[in-house]
Structure formats: C-alpha cells, structure tokens
C-alpha cells in the first residue's frame, strides 16, 4: 500500500513520544514492502530525505511569529503548509500512475490537513491518538483547550478509523467523544510484531480492501 503519514514530530525532532513511534512504524511498514511518505512540520531541518526507504518531507511553517506562543495558530498555519506538501506528493504519485491509498494522521495537530486532503482527494484517513486533551490539560477548560478538544472531536468524526494506543485510551476516547464511534476505533498496543500487522489491517479496512 501507499501510505501518507502526517505528524508534527519525526526524528531528529523529538518533543514527545510520537516522534520515535512514527519512525518505528514507518520503517516497519517499509520493511513490509509498503511505500511510506512522511510529512512532518520541522522548522529547523526542512527538506526532503530518504531514510532507508522512508521518504521524509520536512516542512517549515511560513508564519514564524505566533502571539503568546499560541500552539493553536501555529498548528493552523502549519496545517496549510502540510496540505501544500501533501498535494505535491499526491500529484507526483499521479504522474507515476500511482495513488496514495490511505492518510495516517497522528494527534490533533495533523487533523486539519488530513480533513482537507480527505475532502479534496477523497482519500480515507485514519488517526492515531497517543493521548487526548482531556488528560493533558489538567482540568483547564480555557478557550485554547476547548478548541483542541473540538479539533480532536472533529478528527474522530471525519476519520475512517481511529487507533488508540491502549485499550484504556480507547475507552477514554469513547467516554470523552461518544460511544457512537465504537465501531471504528481499535486499541492497538504499539509494541511487537503484531502492532504493524494490526495497523496495516486498519489501513486495509479504511481503504476498503479488506
């Protein structure tokens, strides 16, 4: 399969756990003969790199200043630039008579570009949640936190499948964002051989080939 991964961190950029999680997944997918394009927002290392078969497109945010260091405005402007890069990848695939089968988005920061790409190109997307805002914010219900919750909710709503990193997180997502999503959500423990098999199975379900 041809997979487009959207993430906000990828080695060498490491701010949390998502970076190494995505890198491991990407390399395992390449080993299993899938084509993997990674688009990552990384202001300091922008450019293209082929890392042992993983095509990493590092992009930088064209808007450098963000008032009050707002993560929300950073995410929204970066989202558009991710769409720009993703569009280039998708058109490049078309030129070579190939297509992206599934978009894999990680965390809420990459939800907005995934939604636009889904609507523009009719490519299904799946989203992995490593954590959710309700746990991270320590009972903060300020406007920024509420906006992030809305974006997470929208991501769950618009995605074809949702992956939670543990069974526990899966149940938390269902309790935060509604049990109606239970049919499309999987709890996948991100360790071991079966991890990648389960992810690929989710891709296939999303792309309609299983």
């Amino acid at each position: 399969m041809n997979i487009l991964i959207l993430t906000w961190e990828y080695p060498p950029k490491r701010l949390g756990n998502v970076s190494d999680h995505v890198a491991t997944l990407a390399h395992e997918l390449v080993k299993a003969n899938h084509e993997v394009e990674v688009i990552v927002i990384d202001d300091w290392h922008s450019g293209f790199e082929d890392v042992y078969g993983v095509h990493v497109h590092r992009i930088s945010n064209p808007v450098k200043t963000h008032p009050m260091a707002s993560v929300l405005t950073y995410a929204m402007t970066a989202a558009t630039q991710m769409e720009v890069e993703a569009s280039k990848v998708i058109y490049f695939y078309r030129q070579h008579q190939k297509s992206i089968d599934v978009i894999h988005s990680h965390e809420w920061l990459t939800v907005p570009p995934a939604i636009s790409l889904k609507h523009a190109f009719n490519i299904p997307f799946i989203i992995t949640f490593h954590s959710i805002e309700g746990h991270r914010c320590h009972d903060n219900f300020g406007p920024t936190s509420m906006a992030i919750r809305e974006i997470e909710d929208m991501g769950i709503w618009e995605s074809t499948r949702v992956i939670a990193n543990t069974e526990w997180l899966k149940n938390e997502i269902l309790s935060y964002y509604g049990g109606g999503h239970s049919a499309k959500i999987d709890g996948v423990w991100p360790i071991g051989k079966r991890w990648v098999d389960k992810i690929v199975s989710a891709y296939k379900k999303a792309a309609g080939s299983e």
Partner: protein
Amino acid sequence: MRVLHLSWEFPPRIIGGIASHVFDLSRALARRGMEVHVVTCNFPGAAEYENIEGVNVHRFEAYSGGDSFYSWALRMQKNMERKACDLINSIKGVDIIHAHDWLSGVAGVGLKHLYRKPLIATIHSTEYGRRTGIHNDLQRSIHEVEGWLCWEAWRIITCSYYMRDHVSWCFRTPNNKLCVVPNGVDVTKFYFNFDYWGVRRNFAHDSQKIVLYVGRLVQEKGLDVLIKALPMVLSRGLPAKMVVVGEGSQKQEFQQLAGGLGLGDRVFFAGHVDDWTLRALYRIADVTVVPSRFEPFGIVALEAMVAHCPLIVAASGGLNEIVDHEGTGLKVPINSPEALAWAIVRVITDKGLRDWMVHNAYQKCLWNYNWDKIAEWTGGIYDAVLYERSTSPWKPA
C-alpha cells in the same frame, strides 16, 4: 469561466468593506457571463445556499469563540477550505480561486495546491498600513500571513497605485505580480426622491453650509486637521457647520478638540447613520472633506463624487489618484489646516468652480469607477492568468 471567490464576509454579514466589495464585484462578474461562486461565513437567518443575481453563495458554519480573533480566523478558514473542497468536487472543478485579504487567504493557499488552480488575491489593506507599522507579535503574525498570501498568489490586485507600491515594499512582492483595479461605486443607489429640507434640518440651520466628514474617528483619518481648519473658515464670515459621520476609538479626543476651539455648536457628531441617510447627506452637503493621513483607496471620495457633492481631499494614498486638483475636486497637503480652510472657502464661494468639478467628478465615476468596467478589467486579469497557467510547467498529473 468558473470563478471561486473566498470572503469572510458577504451580505447580510457586513463587518468591514470587503462584504460590499465582493457583493458588487461578484454580481458584475456574473453579468459578464461568468459562473461565480462565493464561499463565505454563515450568518443568522442567511441561507446555506442562495443565488443572488447570478452569484452562487455558499455559506459554511464558522466557529464562534476561540482564544483570540486571530486563532478564530485561522480555524474558520479551515472550515472555509473544507466547504470549498466539497463545492469544487460537486461542480467538477473551478478555473480561478480568488481570495480577499488574509481572512480568506490561508484557505486560498491550501485550495491552490489541493486543486492546482491559480490563486488571485485582492489585498484591500495591510496590517502594516492599518497600524502604521508592526508593533507586536499579533500584528507581526498577521503581517506574515499576508506576506505568505502574496508569495503564493499568481496575481495580486490592489485598488490603487499607492497600495500596489505599498504591497510591493511591504512584502517584497515583484511588480509583475501586482496589478491595479480601482474600487467601484453604484450610481443607482444615490438617486432617489427625499425631503431635502426635512433631512437637512436634522443637521444644520437653513442658512448654514454643511461640511461633511465620513469615516472612522481615528488619527489616521485626520479629523483633527479638519476641526482645526474650521475656525479659519468661520473667521471669513462663512456660516459653516460640520457634520461628522462615523464612530471610532478617538471620538472623545476629537470632541474635546472641537470644544476647546469653541466649536461646540459648529461640529455635530452624528455617530453611525443608516445607508439611506448617508446617501441623502452626500446630496445635501455643500462640501465633503476627506483629510486622511493614510488611505488605501478612499471610497468616501467616490460616494461624494457620485452624489454631485463638491470634494476636498488630503493628498494621501488612493485619494491622490481619484482626485485631479481643480478638475474633480480640490487637493491639499496632508496635516495642513490652513490649506484645508483655504480650499473650503474656495469651494463654498466659487459656484463656477464647484459646478465644473462636480460635473467632471460624476463623469469620472461613470467612466472609471463603475462595477461593469471593474468586472471587465478583472476578467482581463483572469484571462491573462489562465493563459499563463495553460503554458506553465505546473501541471496536474
């Protein structure tokens, strides 16, 4: 030709000047036979889809809330983009994407690359101009978004040569991407029957000469210069009465200035007035004065010209290009109460000059600032861009 306009406001949602601009421009483009779609924010009571004189208006759910206007604007544009994607898919593609200011520019940038269609941007105003410089992170961030839009746009339309040079300087935009299409004014809205003296007596005594000011009450509009000119006019024995239409953050300062000069009964702060009264005011006023220090275009000048009201402007920004001195109005240096007083006295006392300027000004509006002409010029830009697009190596697969 199928054109998609992106605008954050469209009647009945009217917040700034972009709403009426897009309303008039899109209808004029539709009259030229283009298929015009407008994607804009929803508004209580407005339909999700409607066809207004040939213009297809599509409204999407815009958020309310968020932690600031800026972050709201960016999230709103993600919804705008999604709505536009669904629209473009359902109508099987568009030829041109036309965004208005940064409040729809980010969505425009995304759509340009998603569909590989040329993006045209109209820059109505810049953050740099509005704030006379960039003073904090919020302003700098908006400034950078505007620069991003100018970078991505195939062509940038500005409403005056002044704004073209300003954008070129502000964002280092190459001149061959910039073109100038003026704003327009709808003549038909200004001619209706009304009770001349009945309206006039709400604002001035019958023997008084009305000096009209229309605009926000802020420093950049230069109302203080006009107030300082008034005593010099009165000292010539002319019974002038100033009518100030508009609101703004510096209203109190201007009121204090007028009071301090002993003009309490000579300057009437009318606040906001409805469109009908405003148009009637242009027709009863003896002179309209636009003393702005910064003005991207100066739509007030056009409104006065089309209503046959004599016009005096300060030589700033777009006003400089609209008015020909002693031809369609009088032009004075900015920041000069003396020159302004001289001009007011001259206009009020010289009937021959007044009639000559008013006649020329009206003709200029019909000729230059009419929406059908503007649509023709805009269509020419679309044609040029589509030709360039067809010969460019940037191809969809």
